[in-house]
């Protein structure tokens, strides 16, 4: 059934409609829910399976859109539910890998990560494969980080160009806890990704690193919000990417300092390299501030590769394509801090192939 969803990736404050960043309206043909074959990851000591009910104590907000979030919760056919036990030392990353196929073209994964106080957990979610135009993914990851816990989530997406890909992330972060989200978006025909970091506890921290690559007629649409509620909280949002072909990218990043969030700091940066006169790049770096004693900053740069750098690289014998690979690859590297070594080479190869 065709459903019309409004306010996908809605900007927290509306602005001129003609700029096209207030939020998207999409017609979505939701697939029939079928079991998705995904091996359950092995759990190291200190990590157990969690029940979704652990989330009832927190109020999550969806940056992607509440309707889509509700759909994913109700129709999930996959997902990991993890609980990091109190005070346990950090473990190896827990990896869940999903591949779309013609037989299983629709993935709806509902992921729950509950980190008890003073625990540490890293979760890697790998998405790939495809099923042409039938490819569909809607993922929701909700995180609770209790006092002084550390949670790292890495999402690596290399779906084929026919796939419609929705990714929603929401975290509630307690005193002294830290949540980091890494997103590498290298595939899919349409990507809509939201992230809402609720810095509820004092001295809580959030960080996002996003890399995107667009070509052909791809749509890349992001909406990130860091909401500072506790005192002395800290957020850092970094996004970088490259646009080829006639793709369109929209990046909304909002730092929201709520009254009472004194001594908090928020910083955001975006660096977009443009390689096509036909691409469209939209950025909306927003700061909302209801507290005096805070520091918020934004920086963005949009443009071609610096001619001087390109000339230098070519004078060292690199072809233009090699130079582009190098420059875009540098942006990818800057986002891969939390990506396991075993995955980095694969991502570099995928990117190199796309640019080539």
């Amino acid at each position, binding site marked *: 059934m065709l459903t019309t969803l409004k306010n996908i990736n809605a900007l927290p*404050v*509306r*602005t*001129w*409609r003609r*700029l*096209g*960043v*207030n939020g998207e309206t999409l017609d979505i043909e939701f697939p029939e829910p079928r079991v998705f074959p995904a091996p359950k990851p092995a759990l190291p000591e200190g990590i157990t399976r969690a029940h979704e009910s652990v989330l009832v104590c927190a109020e999550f907000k969806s940056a992607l859109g509440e309707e889509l979030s509700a759909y994913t919760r109700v129709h999930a056919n996959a997902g990991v539910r993890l609980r990091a036990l109190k005070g346990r030392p950090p473990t190896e990353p827990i990896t869940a890998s999903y591949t779309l196929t013609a037989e299983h073209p629709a993935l709806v994964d509902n992921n729950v990560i509950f980190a008890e106080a003073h625990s540490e957990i890293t979760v890697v979610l790998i998405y790939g494969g495809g099923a042409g135009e039938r490819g569909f993914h809607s993922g929701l990851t909700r995180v609770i980080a209790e006092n002084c816990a550390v949670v790292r989530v890495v999402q690596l997406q290399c779906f084929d160009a026919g796939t419609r890909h929705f990714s929603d992330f929401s975290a509630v972060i307690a005193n002294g806890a830290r949540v980091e989200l890494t997103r590498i978006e290298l595939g899919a025909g349409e990507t809509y990704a939201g992230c809402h970091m609720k810095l509820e506890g004092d001295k809580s921290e959030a960080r996002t690193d996003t890399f995107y690559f667009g070509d052909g007629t791809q749509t890349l649409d992001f909406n990130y919000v860091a909401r500072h509620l506790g005192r002395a909280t800290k957020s850092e949002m970094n996004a970088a990417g490259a*646009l080829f072909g006639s793709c369109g990218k929209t990046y909304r990043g909002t730092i929201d*300092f709520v*009254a*009472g969030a*004194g001594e908090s700091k928020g910083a955001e940066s975006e660096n977009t390299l*443009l*390689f*096509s*006169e*036909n*691409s*469209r*790049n*939209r*950025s*909306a*770096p*927003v*700061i*909302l*501030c*209801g*507290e*005096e*004693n*805070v*520091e*918020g*900053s*934004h*920086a*963005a*740069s*949009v*443009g*071609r590769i610096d001619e001087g750098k390109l000339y230098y690289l070519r004078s060292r014998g690199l072809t233009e394509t090699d130079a582009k690979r190098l420059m875009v690859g540098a942006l990818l590297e800057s986002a891969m801090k939390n990506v396991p070594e075993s995955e980095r080479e694969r991502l570099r190869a995928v990117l190199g192939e796309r640019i080539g």
Partner: protein
Amino acid sequence: MSGEDKRALIPDEPDDAAREMYDTKGVMKPRFQVSSGLTSEIVSAISDEKGDPPWMREFRQQSLAVYNETPPPDWGPPLDGLDMEQIITYVKPDARMEARWEDVPEEIKDTFERLGIPEAERTGLAGVGAQYDSEVVYHSVKSEVADLGVVYTDMDTALKGEYGEMVRQHFMKILPPREHRFMALHGAVWSGGSFVYVPDGVEVTIPLQSYFRFNAAGAGQFEHTLIIVGKGSSLHFIEGCSAPKYNVANLHAGCVELYVGEGARLRYSTIENWSKNMYNLNSKRAVVDKNGIIEWVSGSFGSHTGCLYPMSVLRGEGARMDYTGITFAGAGQNLDTGAQVVHAAKNTSSRISAKSISKGGGKSTFRGGITVAREATGCRVSVSCDSLMLDSRSRSDTVPVMDVRCDDVDIGYEAKIGRISEQAIYYLMSRGISEDDARAMIVNGFAEPISKELPLEYAVEMNNLISLEMKGNT
């Protein structure tokens, strides 16, 4: 309930006490005014009173139709307190338009003299226009400027005189009534304002100024400013405005249309100091031809609610826009200001430098819109936005958007938000300066990049306004 009781009540704020210079109410009775509300009959009555030519009569009625079918904006500050049924859209003062200051009626003269307008004319202006409520009451231009072919007159004279066809060709062409609800309103009930025409190759070296004074309670002011600067010419135009405060909502929905010719340069400076019961929903737009330059210098201090985002359409190759603005939102104020630019041609460039200060529960928002069209290769954009929060009862938001449809661009954007450094205050206090003065000095320093862009007397006025707003900060 009486008619007046239905109007939105605007509470007095503590800071208002120090504004007598602006708040002194005029005693003049209007010669004519329409009843409150907005109907076809009211619009016709304005046309009748002004003696509009047929095309303008029709234009007003068409604009009214657009207004009636256009919803209010779904973004920006709330406009709930603005009820058009309670707004009087046309108030004609009991005075004719005069070219000699001595001929202006005493009551009006007193008002402008308190504001220093004639003094400013004597000391450093090429021409002055003064509007009182809905109509211009004084206009003059120095003979040496007029001798160069520069036309500076009120819109009524231009509309009905030898420049009527030029007005018709340009009137609400770059800011049409369909632009938004308040432009449609403007098209229906506009009155007053200035017309400036600078012929090709003429440099006007001293500024022209129009000053808008609003005296009637519960009324609206809808002046129209149309400036055409010819090829290779230059002009500095200054706009000032003020009104006494009433406890009912007033509305200002002016329209400024600027045409900057090839290689021409226009600086448009505004010190906005409306009273704090004003809804200031003003629209300004410039189109700039090849190698032309538009410079906006803007200080927003007054109004209860303000929406002001001058747009520059850089349609000629090598055209340039420069925006320097400061907004000071105090108690009870919600000021939503910023700039918009459309890069529509090759090698165009723009620079936006915006500063805002929020204090005493005031809310300031910087809103920006940068659009780069596919044709605008080689364009450069630089946006910098600094916000200062003076307490935690206030708000300061920054909402810039960049929409880029071409790859050969160089765009840089940076924004910062923060408070006054305690260290800096401590340092100044250790040198014997009181805390209030130390804060005012720091805020004045913060505003310095804007004040240095203004002629000296206006920079002094702006610094006085900041000092006024800063009083009793600690």
